[in-house]
């Protein structure tokens, strides 16, 4: 047997090691592959949740958001296989109905986009309680007594932020005010929102910030806000008072509903009623419109879904 030199043995060992290493592959690559296998086993659904209303028009405006965003959301990532819309109360499809459908379809994770203006009992307690994600005693009891079904889904639930966070809302309000504005220096804005008893401080903060945005982005320096929802017993008077307050210092009041969609009761009966009751039609400009429709909101929905997906799964290659 001939003798093999040490350097030759070392070289041979290194070559064998390299071949083994190449055959087995990069350990990091293996982890990535495993992680990819995990993520492909996750099937995501997207649920656009809104308050719900008896108004057909209101519900259509919310459904239109799903229609406008569905293809883009589905195209943005293989993991997302379905998008749906649910209403918290009044009409089907309810949240429970949709979550049952997701479970039946084998969806492992649901990204919930609450199409609600800002924090409220609905966003923080009711919707998570309906989905079995929270056990708030008051929400649990009152939802049950209102006949709203609580459903503990098998799918994991991931909530996105509310509408108040992005610049989208600010731009929306500025655009709508400017659409009605003719002589900004002599005009003031009245922003009318639903309001919340439990989260009054947060709602006031949001409306004050929107007033600040108007001052900085448009030439309209005066603004007031009022509530039109349960907190004021759906009365017109708070809005009348806010309009009168603006008219004390400005020639014209521009009234803007800070409501997600158009519900005849709010935009026509309450806010429209307040405009009529003030009785100075020449000095008030009002369109019974809403935040929707807004392409930027649709873009925001697509973006926030993808951001949430990345948070849940880590960065995933887009299609």
């Amino acid at each position, binding site marked *: 047997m001939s003798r093999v030199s040490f350097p030759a043995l070392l070289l041979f060992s290194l070559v064998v090691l390299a071949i083994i290493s190449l055959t087995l592959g990069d350990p990091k690559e293996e982890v990535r592959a495993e992680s990819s296998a995990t993520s492909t086993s996750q099937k995501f659904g997207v649920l656009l949740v809104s308050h719900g209303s008896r108004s057909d028009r209101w519900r259509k405006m919310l459904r239109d958001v799903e229609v406008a965003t569905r293809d883009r959301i589905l195209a943005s990532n293989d993991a997302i296989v379905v998008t749906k819309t649910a209403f918290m109360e009044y009409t089907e499809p309810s949240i429970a109905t949709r979550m049952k459908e997701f479970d039946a379809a084998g969806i492992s994770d649901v990204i919930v986009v609450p199409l609600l203006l800002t924090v409220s009992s609905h966003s923080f307690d009711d919707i998570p309680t309906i989905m079995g994600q929270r056990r708030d005693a008051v929400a649990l009891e009152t939802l049950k007594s*209102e006949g709203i079904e609580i459903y503990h889904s098998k799918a994991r639930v991931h909530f996105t932020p509310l509408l108040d966070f992005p610049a989208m809302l600010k731009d929306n309000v500025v655009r709508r005010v400017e659409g009605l504005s003719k002589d900004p220096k002599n005009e003031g804005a009245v922003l009318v929102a639903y309001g919340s008893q439990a989260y009054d401080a947060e709602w006031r903060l949001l409306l004050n910030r929107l007033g600040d945005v108007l001052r900085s982005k448009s030439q309209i320096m005066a603004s007031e806000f009022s509530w039109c929802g349960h907190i004021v017993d759906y009365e017109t008077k708070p809005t009348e008072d806010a309009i009168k307050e603006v008219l004390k210092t400005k020639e014209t009041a521009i009234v803007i509903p800070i409501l997600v969609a158009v519900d005849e009761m709010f935009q026509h009966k309450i806010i429209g009623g307040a405009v009529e009751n003030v009785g100075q039609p020449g000095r008030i400009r009002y369109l019974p419109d809403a935040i929707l429709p807004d392409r930027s909101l649709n873009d925001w929905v697509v973006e926030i879904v993808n951001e949430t997906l990345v948070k849940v799964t880590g960065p995933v290659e887009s299609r």
Partner: protein
Amino acid sequence: MKFRKTIITLHRDIGYFFAGMIVLYAISGIAVNHIDDWNPSFIIQRKQIDLDLPSDPSAITREHVVKNLRPLGEEGNYKSFDFPSSLRVKIYLEDGSVTGILGTGVGEYETIRRRPIFFEANSLHIHPKGWWLLYSDIFAGALIFITITGVCILPGRNGLAGRGKWLVAAGVVLPLLAAIQL
């Protein structure tokens, strides 16, 4: 005469059978009519309390929270706490919650309990489900039957053909007026 006797018997017996339910639904109806003035199903109590919590949300611990629950006798009912917004903390209890505005020391203690009898009556009345929905429909049909047989029981001048028709007409006029007015 035999037909009238059968009607009287059915009216009486069906009336007996549904007597409890009629009273229960009537009470529930009155309770829900005044929903703007009170909560007909729950007793929700709220009271202002002082809270001693750090103003920085990230500094708030379970110990801080439980310490604040002791004066309320609720430390055993603590479930969790969370932050609805940057301004606020919410502490979840078995039958209620405590909400605090961060940095102010101001809190609200809220408890909920079912209003005895009314909760059950309202649940049955307002959101019938399953077999109770069918039973409620039968009950509604029975009310119609009891009413029709009731107006037909007495013959003569005190019956439907006599003063009865005027009273029935008067009873119909009021809801008609209300409907027109609304």
